[in-house]
């Protein structure tokens, strides 16, 4: 190891498959051709490297997102917005009862750098963790180059709305965003604007559906419009959400096109609560005490609607606000 007294280390040498090992606090991470091996003082865990890298990519790109990012039923992170818990078995009933669960809290920049280093070292040139399985090669095998441009895509986040002058702009062929193969039938016409002189900055509109049809990533909510703390975070979904998202607040889904099925489980134990099928035009809340994972058979357009207010996690955790959105 390069050092003993720091929270993150990268091994000096690589293993026989060409990959470095990493430590973050007491957690250790190793990979071989097919698997990641995660160990901590009270246990160890294996995951498919394909699933692990897809999950790690989201956790890094979203800067640990809202609440809990479960990589699977054992391993994941909890965002405390400034610090992050990295855990094993914390949200797994059997691990909890056996008192084998383990968690460490790290300053966000520390865990961010550790996760970025792992993602960069373990993602080969053949694999894009943001792409659907049909659109990328495999994550497997011995070390084979890298894919830094794919894993460091700039995160889109509009301040006011996409297409407002000075804000995020629409996607075009010229800007490197061709229409996705599953959305070739989506109308590419933009709204017709007739601003009076001097009002060009405020008479603004764009085609949300055309914009989404040109997204080159899956399962990556990004802001297109903001009404104070109310954020429209649409995303295009295909195959399986690579993480199981545990909520620290209510979030809402509006299915804009096609269909997604969600498995909903208790956030803390993993016990099954429901199965939600959403078709175009359906609106559904995800309560603040559940976790969910989605399945999209065809690439679909999903509007994830978030309330970004920093007061909410504490209101819900303390019981001052309900875990479900409305009373009726």
């Amino acid at each position, binding site marked *: 190891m390069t050092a003993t007294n720091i929270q993150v280390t990268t091994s000096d040498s690589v293993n026989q498959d060409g990959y470095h090992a990493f430590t973050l606090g007491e957690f250790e991470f190793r990979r071989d051709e097919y698997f990641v091996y995660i160990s901590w003082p009270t246990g160890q865990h294996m995951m498919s490297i394909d699933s692990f890298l897809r999950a790690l990519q989201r956790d890094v790109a979203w800067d640990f997102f809202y609440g809990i990012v479960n990589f699977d039923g054992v391993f994941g992170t909890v965002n405390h917005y400034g610090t992050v818990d990295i855990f094993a078995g914390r949200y797994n009933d059997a691990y909890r009862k056996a008192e084998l669960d383990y968690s460490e809290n790290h300053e966000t920049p520390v865990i961010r750098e550790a996760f970025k280093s792992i993602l960069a070292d373990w993602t080969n040139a053949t694999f894009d963790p943001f792409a659907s399985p049909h*659109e*990328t*090669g495999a994550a497997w095998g011995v070390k084979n180059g890298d894919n830094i441009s794919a894993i460091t895509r700039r995160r889109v986040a509009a301040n006011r*709305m*996409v297409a*407002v002058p000075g804000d995020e702009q629409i996607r075009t062929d010229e800007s490197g965003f061709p229409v996705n*193969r*599953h*959305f*070739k*039938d*989506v109308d590419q*016409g*933009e*709204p*017709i604007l*007739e601003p*009076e002189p001097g*009002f060009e900055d*405020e*008479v*603004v*509109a764009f*085609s*949300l*559906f055309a914009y989404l049809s040109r997204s080159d990533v899956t399962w990556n909510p990004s802001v297109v*419009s*903001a*009404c104070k703390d*109310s954020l*429209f975070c649409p995303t295009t979904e295909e195959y399986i959400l690579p993480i199981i998202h545990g909520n620290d607040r*209510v*979030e*809402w889904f*509006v299915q*804009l096109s096609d*269909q997604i099925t969600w498995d*909903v489980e208790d956030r803390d134990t993993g*016990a*099954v609560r*429901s*199965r*939600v*099928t959403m*078709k*175009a*035009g*359906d*609106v*559904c*809340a995800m309560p603040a005490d559940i976790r969910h994972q989605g399945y999209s058979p*065809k690439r679909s357009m999903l509007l994830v*609607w978030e309330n970004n*207010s920093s007061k*909410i996690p504490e209101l819900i955790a303390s019981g001052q606000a309900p*875990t*479900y*959105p*409305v009373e*009726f």
Partner: protein
Amino acid sequence: MGNPTKGGGVEHASYTTKFGSLASFDKGGVDLINDDARHYAFSNIFEVASKSQPWEKVAVAKNFEYVLEVVRAEGTSPWSTAAHDQFAVCMDGAITVELVKLADSPLADDAEGSVTLGGEPEGARMGKIHLRHGHQALLPAGSAYRFVTAHPSVLMIQTIAGPETQFRWAEICQTV
């Protein structure tokens, strides 16, 4: 066809994207295993619009003060305004948005939600936006706006709950 050197499988030559509309929508739902359906407030935008009066602002989602309103757009709306930005997505049909820079807003700077103005707004004309399916428009803070449609259409508005927001969860949501 797909590229076997990429994902390894073969794909269809083309795909059909399914959107909903007033004329044709298909609704999913919550299959309960151990929960209460009301916790999910599951509804469908086109079903809500099909049962609404023109220009009613019906909440289909709420997160503290924020809401998503569904509006059945039919004919010409009254003029409205809000003290904050709002965003309108045309979910079905075609809708023209007319904008006026209000000379004198009736709302306090921190007022929440939209309100209907009596009569014609006073102020400079800002312009028009012609929205079609899937288009999203900015309704700028402090502007007056109205919508015009030739055929029944559907809007989804990103806004804050206001005095005119209709809450009818028991009518629109899956309850069992």
